[in-house]
């Protein structure tokens, strides 16, 4: 035993005698995780969150969350002598007076954009591979909660500097609150402590931004990860991988090194962006003034779809019993997002209702093998993309020399027409890919070698694929549609006719598939 081992052993023993950690660590440090690049997408979000905590803490040292009026006398000449809020002035000071302040501000903002983008791609991975199925429904709901809170948290951060752009954003948020029938005006007054803009809002959202929401985030992320730990990570199907095991590498040392290294890479990329690309140049926007607005005022991208929906809404308004109901804000600003996020959160339950599948799943689906789910995902993404594009309709109009009205009218139709087209096309592509898989298993790989037979016929030589690949292409199960009879065994019509009819119909569409090759198919081919 070398001296170093002896020292390490003594320290480890000292800690173990006092905490009993050895047994726990022995079990958990060897915990096995499957390996695939798509399993690292959630980690990007996790590491961005850590970066947000660190850089955000730095910013709180100098940021002054107050709408008290001050006169700017800092070093940025074009604003010298102007009246502005202490919040804006202190953000300018962070940018121009504090060493490294601008870099930190930019890292914080880029990290927020990366955080949200990573959450979205992580959600897409979980959705398209069916990783949300039993037993992971709760974790899916927590994830949707994190996404929703992330949008709110990002918007509050965007609002804190109290520059012209963020003030415009707050004004729109106020308008959306006011759009709620009956209670809207009161809620807006409560939130702002009086009429807009008031002096209460920024201090309030500061507390929510740095205390309440990060606290909830930490709690939810902890539960999210604990559930991953407890339920084990899902894995791709492959030889030797079943619903009862996990094939991969142990946490220590492989994943410790990888995850640790990946954190620094995420930090590096974020710092790189913060160093080379300007984000939210608040000194150009100027201090907020309710009488001013800039062309091309936009929210950050994760709110852009919401702005896009509001921008494309036709001017509809009702007056009922002296109350104004602004449908043009209510529908795109509250009702549609409400439906979208509720549907997203409930999706695991909706799918299990359609398929009738109540079993546990730890093996992932290849997206092509579940055409309806994949097509629904493509449809939702198309919807969001059209909305997002319309959110930047003015920038698109000037960049591509189009009319802003043309872009808006395109979006108004596209939001209804393109998503169903995306559904149909994606479903066909999935079925075609299934067909290609079937061909590959049955006839093998095309080698590109041409053979001339004695009687002059040319044939291409096909090579059988490896057993591993054949397994991968045929491991999935193909469940038939739910056998939902309209009448029960005694010939009586079942209750809930319409609901059953709908369920039957969707279940049938859901089960549409290209039959995967069976052993008999293969044998038959070999006979030829």
């Amino acid at each position, binding site marked *: 035993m070398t001296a170093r081992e002896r020292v390490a052993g003594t320290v480890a023993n000292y800690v173990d005698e006092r905490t009993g950690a050895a047994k726990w660590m022995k079990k958990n440090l060897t915990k096995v995780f499957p*390996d695939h*690049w*798509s399993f*690292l*997408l959630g980690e*990007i979000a996790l590491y961005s969150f850590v970066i947000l905590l660190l850089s955000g803490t730095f910013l709180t040292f100098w940021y002054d969350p107050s709408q008290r009026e001050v006169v700017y006398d800092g070093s940025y*000449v*074009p*604003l*010298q*002598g*102007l009246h502005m809020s202490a919040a804006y002035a202190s953000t300018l000071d962070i*940018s121009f007076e504090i060493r490294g302040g*601008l870099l930190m501000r*930019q890292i914080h903002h*880029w990290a927020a*954009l*990366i955080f949200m*983008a*990573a959450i979205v*791609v992580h959600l897409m991975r979980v959705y398209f591979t069916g990783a949300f199925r039993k037993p992971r429904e709760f974790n899916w709901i927590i994830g949707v909660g994190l996404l929703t809170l992330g949008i709110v948290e990002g918007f509050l951060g965007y609002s804190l500097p109290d520059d*012209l*752009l963020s003030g415009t954003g707050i004004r729109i948020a106020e308008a959306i609150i006011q759009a709620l029938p009956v209670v809207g005006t009161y809620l807006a007054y409560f939130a702002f402590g009086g009429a807009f803009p008031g002096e209460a809002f920024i201090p309030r959202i500061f507390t929510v931004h740095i205390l309440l929401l990060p606290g909830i985030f930490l709690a939810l992320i902890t539960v999210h990860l604990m559930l991953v730990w407890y339920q084990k990570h899902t894995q791709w199907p492959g030889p030797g991988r079943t619903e009862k095991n996990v094939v991969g*590498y142990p946490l220590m040392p*492989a994943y410790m090194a*990888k995850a640790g*290294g*990946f954190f620094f890479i*995420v930090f590096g*990329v974020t710092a790189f*962006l913060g*160093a*080379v*690309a*300007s*984000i939210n*140049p608040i*000194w*150009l*926007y*100027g201090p907020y003034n309710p*009488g*001013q*607005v*800039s*062309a*091309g*005022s936009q*929210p*950050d*991208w994760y709110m852009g779809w919401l702005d896009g929906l509001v921008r494309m809404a036709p001017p509809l308004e009702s007056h009922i019993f002296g109350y104004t109901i602004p449908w043009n804000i209510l529908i795109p600003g509250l009702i549609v997002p409400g439906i979208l996020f509720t549907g997203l959160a409930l999706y695991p339950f909706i799918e299990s209702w359609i398929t009738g599948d109540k079993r546990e799943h730890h093996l992932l689906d290849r997206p092509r093998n579940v055409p309806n789910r994949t097509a629904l995902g493509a449809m939702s993404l198309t919807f969001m993309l059209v909305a997002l594009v319309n959110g930047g*309709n*003015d*920038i698109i*109009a*000037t960049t591509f020399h189009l*009319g*802003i*009205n*043309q872009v808006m009218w395109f979006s108004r139709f596209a939001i209804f027409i393109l998503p169903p087209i995306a559904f149909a096309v994606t479903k066909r592509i999935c079925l075609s890919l299934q067909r290609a898989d079937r061909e590959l298993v049955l006839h093998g790989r095309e080698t590109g070698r041409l053979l001339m037979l004695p009687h002059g016929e040319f044939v291409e030589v096909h090579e059988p694929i490896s057993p591993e690949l054949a397994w991968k292409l045929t491991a999935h199960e193909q469940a038939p549609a739910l056998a939902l009879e309209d009448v029960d065994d005694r010939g009586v019509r079942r209750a809930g006719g319409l609901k059953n009819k709908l369920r039957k119909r969707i279940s049938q569409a859901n089960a549409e598939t290209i039959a995967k090759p069976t052993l008999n198919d293969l044998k038959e081919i070999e006979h030829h």
Partner: protein
Amino acid sequence: MRKLSKLRRSAFASPLLLVVALFAIGTTFSVASATDKTELSVDQRSAQIAEGKQIFLKGCSSCHGLNLEGSAIAPSLIGVGAASVDFQVGTGRMPVADLSQQIARKKPVYNEEQTAALAAYVASTAPGPAIPNDSMLNYERDGNTAEGGTLFRTNCAMCHNFAGQGGALTQGKYAPTLMGVEPKYIYEAMITGPQAMPVFANKTVTPAEKLSIIKWIKAAENEPQLGGAALGRVGPVTEGLLVWTLGLGLLIGVAVWLATKAR
């Protein structure tokens, strides 16, 4: 030295010095206050107007009418003033190349002299805003950047964007970028209100305030890219684009690389 001292006490010394001093002051003043454009004589002016009329009849009258009365496709030019002509012709917007939603800036068709002649001709038919001369455009001396920024954000930013990059208007019209636009043309645009732009009369925005706005625009134009690449200064759209392409592209690339290495 003695000779000089003697001369100094001579009876002619005071009047002579006075004459010399007056001459020096007068010369300095005339040099200092001289403008590069000498005032035209009456004859030269009428010749210029005549030349302008000839250019107008050849190049402009088919749309604007033989007597500047306008037509179905072009406005009347009576009373638009020399400033309007100088702006439209000097920036190449007139004569128009294509009658689309908005007439864009292009290489001028007429040279400076022809433009001046056209302006003089149009101005001779009815009074209107004059071309600001150089002494009226000394924004470095007479403008205030911070005040100009506030005025810009109040009056200009809603169309031209917070940093003067331009923006979209309805039905395919747009507010053009203000970057690289000569101070004279910015000033003329404010007093004449070309195309979709409103007129900012001197009672609304005083000449001094106009110079402040110009000074702020020039400050924004010359401002170094403080936080790194400016991404077009159009707000969060380009930032979102960069995050989804470069940012996430790099990170997903690294994720793929990390997962491959283990095999």
